[in-house]
């Protein structure tokens, strides 16, 4: 998913932009992994264990 940094975006009622505008690069916020994995990390939810 890719959004313009100046867009207003919510996903499932969760504010994405402008809240995470500081993560945008070259005017675009790119979410390159499953949304909730990305949100887990950017919202400070701690460890995300990964299968090995």
């Amino acid at each position, binding site marked *: 998913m890719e959004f313009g940094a100046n867009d207003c975006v919510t996903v499932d009622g969760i504010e994405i932009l402008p809240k995470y505008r500081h993560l945008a690069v070259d005017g675009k916020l790119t979410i390159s992994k*499953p949304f*909730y*994995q990305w949100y887990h990390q950017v919202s*400070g939810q701690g460890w*995300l*264990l990964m299968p*090995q």
Partner: protein
Amino acid sequence: MRINNTGHYEYCRWADKSQRTHAPHIQSVSPQEFFQQHMTPIRQQLLAGDQPTGCGECAVMEQHHKVSGRQKQLLKVGVRVEQFEKTLVSSPWAETFKSTQFTQLPQDWQIDLGNYCNSACVFCEPGSSSRLAIEWKQLGFIDQLPSPNWTDDPELVNKFIHTLEQSSHIQYLHFIGGETLITPAFKTILRALIQAGLNRTATIGFTTNLTVWDSQVINLLTQFQGVNLGMSVETFEIVNDYVRWPSKLPVVLENLDRWQELAAQQAWLLQLRTTPTLLTISSLLSVYDYAWTRKISVESCNFLTEPAFMRPSVLPPSYRSSVIYHMQSWLDQHPVSGNTVLNIRDPNVSQLQNHQDLQSYVNYLKNMPDESNRLPDLVIFLKRLEASRGNSILTYLPEYEELFKSAGY
């Protein structure tokens, strides 16, 4: 995954005591085999949307808006209860959980080291305190001492260590006792983890009763990537001495200061661990007040279910109203708001987390049915214990004299 004090595996550290599995044992089944084979039916059951019978205590916690064990554990695999289906699909574990050929090794352990303990807390049980076990046997509460600790057998400890050595991706090992600091296997396992180089990536968690200090263990702990330290205290009122007998509050406070100083130097994460009962619920606020100014989080495993006569819900409504009033007043005087804090290991939101956790006790006291019919059982139990200990609850809780006397004290 959990290994309990007697060496039996359990699929969840949070499962209801009455519904926990008591087999198999590390003697006959390796940790890998239990995790990969024995736990597969539970995973399938959960994926099918069924609620195992052992999940009842977490359901009660969520009913009162207390963050439950299942919420905390699910978070570690990226699953959130309020968006269960979507977060499960998004979880890095979605396909792995579905597979019947599960080849993963545990990355997150609770290791119960045994019941070696120098304390005999009134709400505890012999399987978790050797001191209490001896006292209960002398008092005739039990006929036999509990089964031996699995960590008393060096072969079993070595077998367990061998599994850890093969688990290069271990994230977290949480140790409890008994009292961890006086349990020999704690040092043995920490040394083995360091020897295997796992200290560079693993975080150690453990709980201490704040009555002992061991420089050797501390030296080992400083070699780990992270340490989460749980410090047990019920209240900063003198009744803590009665409940966590025979600890003394000045010693507890002294050790609390020492751990905080060390944690600040080492960047360790601190928590205050409580087990609120009828005897301490009225002064529980002192713990949250202490934690607020120091930005330390407070955690309790669940709302106490056993012993049933010590549940906070045994307090009659007429006594609860004062506790609720003081808790609510404190919450109103310490305003903080935000989304529900699930990640209780984030010190940046400890005040919000504590605010929400204390609110769950207000909810519990307001909504739990009156169980004051259990008061006579409590009084009988305390009187027998006090005959052994030479103390009296009325010294510590004079405000409950009328209540206890009405129940036969």
